[in-house]
């Protein structure tokens, strides 16, 4: 068990900087998820921690020791790959014990560790099978077993669930969480799936274009995104962004969305945004769940407007409604009994207590 530190880590391929100087402190026992779109540098970062890629600049520390030039086998890490990377000619037990056998552990201890890991992962019956006789989910369990038996300082997961079907992915997600609760090993987990990131992580690291956009707990990222990228990446359906500007009307601060729609800001928000220049081009960020059907008893700060729905998507527990405001496509979430229909007019309520205001040019949440 150990903490992991990345200090100003850079990865260059010829002229391209894949990772542009990232700083990250991962504490002992922590479950960290690196998330971002493909090409954001998350896998490269993980591979640098593993020692599979050299770092171009900066320092990586595992358990307080700089490991920049330490080969993977001496870093005391274990990695689970997207395509499992099981040795096809070995049985499950042989796959799991390979690392221990290379290090000449006593036979009895190897057997004990493999049995224990197999029990933990519920693969005791499969121990004598070859990988080709296993299903995708079983193979991924074996890959995790191979990592667990070594009892490493750090677990590294490189998109381990991407090859599984949706149902199995949910199941394995819970398995991974259970395993981490039991073994408590420091874990770095890479995924492009923000749901996986939110559900698994103690802290999520959102990466974009080789940089860290934001580090925080799942709730922090969801409720207090720092940038437009994070706000749009975390949450499904994604947050809506509407061009807007601030204006003063009769002593109250208003937010104007279109020529005919403008809302007075709730007092707390008005105080927060009052210092902003009125000419600045802004974006209103509002999540679909804060755009619901209007009803009789609205709380303060909830404003209503009339619109015509383009498309509705009944999901069962809710209905997603899509419409446009001045050409900007917008998604809302309404009660399935609210009577939303394709092409029909509807009165919607926007909860401005949960709004975000962004600088359009810089993408920074204000």
């Amino acid at each position: 068990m150990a903490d992991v530190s990345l200090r100003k880590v850079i990865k260059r391929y010829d002229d391209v900087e894949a990772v542009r100087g990232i700083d990250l402190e991962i504490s002992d026992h922590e479950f960290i998820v690196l998330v971002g779109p493909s090409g954001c540098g998350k896998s490269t970062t993980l591979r640098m921690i593993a020692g599979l890629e050299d770092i171009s600049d900066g320092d990586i520390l595992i358990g307080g020791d700089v490991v920049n030039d330490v080969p993977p086998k001496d870093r005391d890490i274990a990695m689970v790959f997207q395509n499992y990377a099981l040795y096809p000619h070995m049985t499950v037990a042989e796959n799991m014990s390979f690392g221990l056998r290379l290090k000449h552990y006593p036979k009895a201890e190897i057997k004990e560790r493999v049995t224990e890991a197999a029990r933990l992962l519920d693969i005791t019956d499969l121990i004598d099978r070859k990988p080709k006789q296993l299903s995708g989910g079983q193979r991924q369990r074996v890959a995790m077993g191979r990592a667990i038996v070594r009892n490493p300082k750090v677990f590294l997961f490189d998109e381990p669930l991407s090859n599984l079907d949706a149902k199995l992915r949910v199941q394995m997600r819970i398995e991974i969480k259970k395993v981490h609760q039991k073994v408590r090993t420091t874990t770095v987990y890479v995924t492009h799936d923000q749901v996986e990131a939110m559900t698994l992580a103690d802290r999520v690291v959102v990466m974009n274009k080789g940089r860290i956009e934001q580090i925080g707990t799942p709730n922090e990222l969801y409720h207090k995104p720092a940038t437009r990228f994070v706000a749009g990446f975390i949450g499904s359906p994604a947050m809506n962004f509407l061009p807007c500007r601030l204006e003063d009307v009769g002593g109250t601060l208003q937010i104007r969305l279109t020529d005919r729609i403008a809302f007075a800001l709730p007092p707390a928000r008005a105080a927060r945004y009052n210092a902003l220049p009125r000419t600045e081009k802004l974006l209103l960020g509002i999540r679909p769940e804060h755009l619901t059907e209007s009803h009789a008893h609205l709380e303060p700060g909830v404003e209503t407007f009339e619109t015509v729905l383009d498309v509705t998507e009944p999901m069962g527990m809710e209905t997603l409604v899509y419409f446009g405001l001045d050409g900007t496509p917008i998604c809302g979430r309404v009660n399935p009994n609210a009577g939303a229909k394709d092409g029909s007019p509807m009165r919607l309520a926007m909860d401005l207590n949960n709004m975000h205001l962004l600088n359009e040019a810089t993408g920074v949440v204000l």
Partner: protein
Amino acid sequence: MSTLAIDKAGPSRKVKYGSMSRDRTWALRWSYFFLVLFAIFFLTPPVYMLITSLKSSAEISAATNPWWVFHPTLSNYVELLTSNQFLRFFWNSSVVAIAVVIITMLISIPAAFALARMKFWGSATLATGVFLTYLIPDSLLFIPLFKMLAVFQDYTGITLLNRWYVLLFIYPTLTVPFCTWIMIGYFASIPKELDEAALIDGASWLQTLTRIFIPVALPGLIAATIFAFTVSWAQFLYPLVFTTSVDQFVLPVGITTTLIKGDVFNWGQIMTGALLGAAPPLVIYAFLMDYYIAGLTAGATKG
């Protein structure tokens, strides 16, 4: 509208399915026709060899039907298999072929692993270079090779020419490039994550090669082994050039030089010798082919 379209699509698809199976029948008939043609074409010489090997010299030279044995005899087999000379050729061939296979594998496997996996400066060019050397025909290569060995002998006093073991240096020029090339292909098809997993598990490069790559690429290894053995066993030009004493001969050269005396062709023994000489590769193919195909199909379902 839409239901109508679906109704129409139903039976028409059925008709198409039937025609596809008719296509298949015809494809099979043509396949069988050409396969039989092929088999006749390629099996005629060995059958003729077998027939001739069972005849006495008198019957071979008599004007009888060459495709039938009237007085079958095993005298050719008995004579060859009791002849020390022939057994010597057989022994030389076996030692050379087996040693060349071992030498080739010892060079090709690490070379292919290095070229396929350990990315170093110039590795891609080198891999192409390895293949290009295979394209130089042996009929061109033997002259400079002979010269090299002669110069080597002049300077060091070590005699390699006219010794059977000179072939252990010569044959790998044919087998190593091709086997390396085959193995590069097989090693390249092994997912990168497999050696990364081994690396993280604590394996050295050598352990990755011996404990992961060689077992996983076994079908390729067997293909390369078969190739190296066949090439060494059947090679004619190099032993003809580099060995001149009868006791240093390998089988192909031995048969043609000792069983043809001037313009007298001892056809019965030539055919018997050729047939006996063809047996070891046949046995190896028969034995290893099963294993080779088993390995191939196991790899295919790995997923």
